[in-house]
């Protein structure tokens, strides 16, 4: 476990920290992240990334999958890495 990293590297595998749950909330028409006594409402791009954070896909797989799905999006690599870095700094996800 190298849980102290800053920028994730491509061969690392992110997963949600235990106790965090990602789900669709119809009333808010948004995906949310639920954790002890808290909730964050996620925007579309954060949701698309978190859908792929399953403890199995590596960062590189997530980037490839989203690139294939959104071929028109520019700089998608940076956006994904940036989001994962933030999510890690917020302690939402862990890397293995």
């Amino acid at each position: 476990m190298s849980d102290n990293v800053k920028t994730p590297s491509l061969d690392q595998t992110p997963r949600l920290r235990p106790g965090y749950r990602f789900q669709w909330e119809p009333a808010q028409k948004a995906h949310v992240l639920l954790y002890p006594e808290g909730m964050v409402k996620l925007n579309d791009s954060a949701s698309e990334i978190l859908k792929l954070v399953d403890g199995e896909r590596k960062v590189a797989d997530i980037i490839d999958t989203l690139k294939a799905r959104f071929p028109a999006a520019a700089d998608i690599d940076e956006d994904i890495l940036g989001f994962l870095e933030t999510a890690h700094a917020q302690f939402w996800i862990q890397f293995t």
Partner: protein
Amino acid sequence: MHNSGFSLPEPIQGPPLWLLAELTYKCPLQCPYCSNPLDFAGHGEELTTAEWVTVFKQAREMGAAQLGFSGGEPLVRQDLAALIGEARNLGYYTNLITSGIGLTEKKIAAFKDAGLDHIQISFQASDAEVNNLLAGSQKAFDQKLKMARAVKAHGYPMVLNFVTHRHNIDQIDRIIELCIALEADAVELATCQFYGWAELNRAGLLPSRAQLERAERITNEYRDKLAAEGHHCKLIFVTPDYYEERPKPCMGGWGSLFLSVTPDGTALPCHSARQLPIKFPNVREHSLQHIWYDSFGFNRFRGDDWMPEPCRSCDEKERDFGGCRCQAYLLTGDASQADPVCAKSAHHDVILAAREEAETSTLAIDQLSFRNDRTSRLICKG
């Protein structure tokens, strides 16, 4: 806006996102700052399992995503595992808020199977209790420590909650050390709010400004240390608003996000609102939809039409909503007044006097009114 010939449409009221289920007022402890109503011994029959499940379903359909099981001590309810299971199936994130007294490894495992997401253990301890705890003596506190370890061993996230006051706040460094050793994911260090039992005991509880500043400084030092280590434990320090010049935005606004249901089914916009001279609706008589959107009680302090001066013309009213209605009522006798914590309030001198008193108070812990049936019956007029 009232004379301008047009009025902007009222913002549309969103759904409750948080549901607090106060399952029972029964509790083996007797904390002198308990937020339960002073006359709790005079309240009605507890909701049945089926009645609670109906409440959970309705709130979930409306949009509630977080559900807290509290009390009293929720472990007193024999149907707790069943209620957790129902709530989890509905898609709630389920939080158990317990003193740890009455918890066993077996229950921790059973709740996990039922789908419980998180356990918060409250160290709602008096001076002597905190001392015992930190010294690792006395059975009740060995029990809490054992249960905290078991909660982590079963893979739950764990929040530890310490209610601080003038008799224990000076030990904040040892409290934080203990929480880190127990692998807490978050620690809430909250100076008790002065509603309910705490109001009765304020002079014996409110820390002095010097105590508070020291505790906050130490907490910040630990925060820096944890951050430098990449440690995820979050320290949440809540200052008593008696030392502020502006009130806190109570519950993110009256009837805005939070819905609390008491053991007998009374629905409240905040767990201490029961003390207000307002008749709140009961889930046995009305749908939650009606209660949340249409009832008098939930609409009483929504928006700002109800505000008298100084709040009415104040440019900060959208930030703090005039502060806490319960505190306003408790300290001024009128729930629509500005919260006296606000320096603009005509009643702010009450707060100043309490601070003054905190500098000199000599009330010992055994002079506090402990929360128990006997004291409650004395207070309850019914």
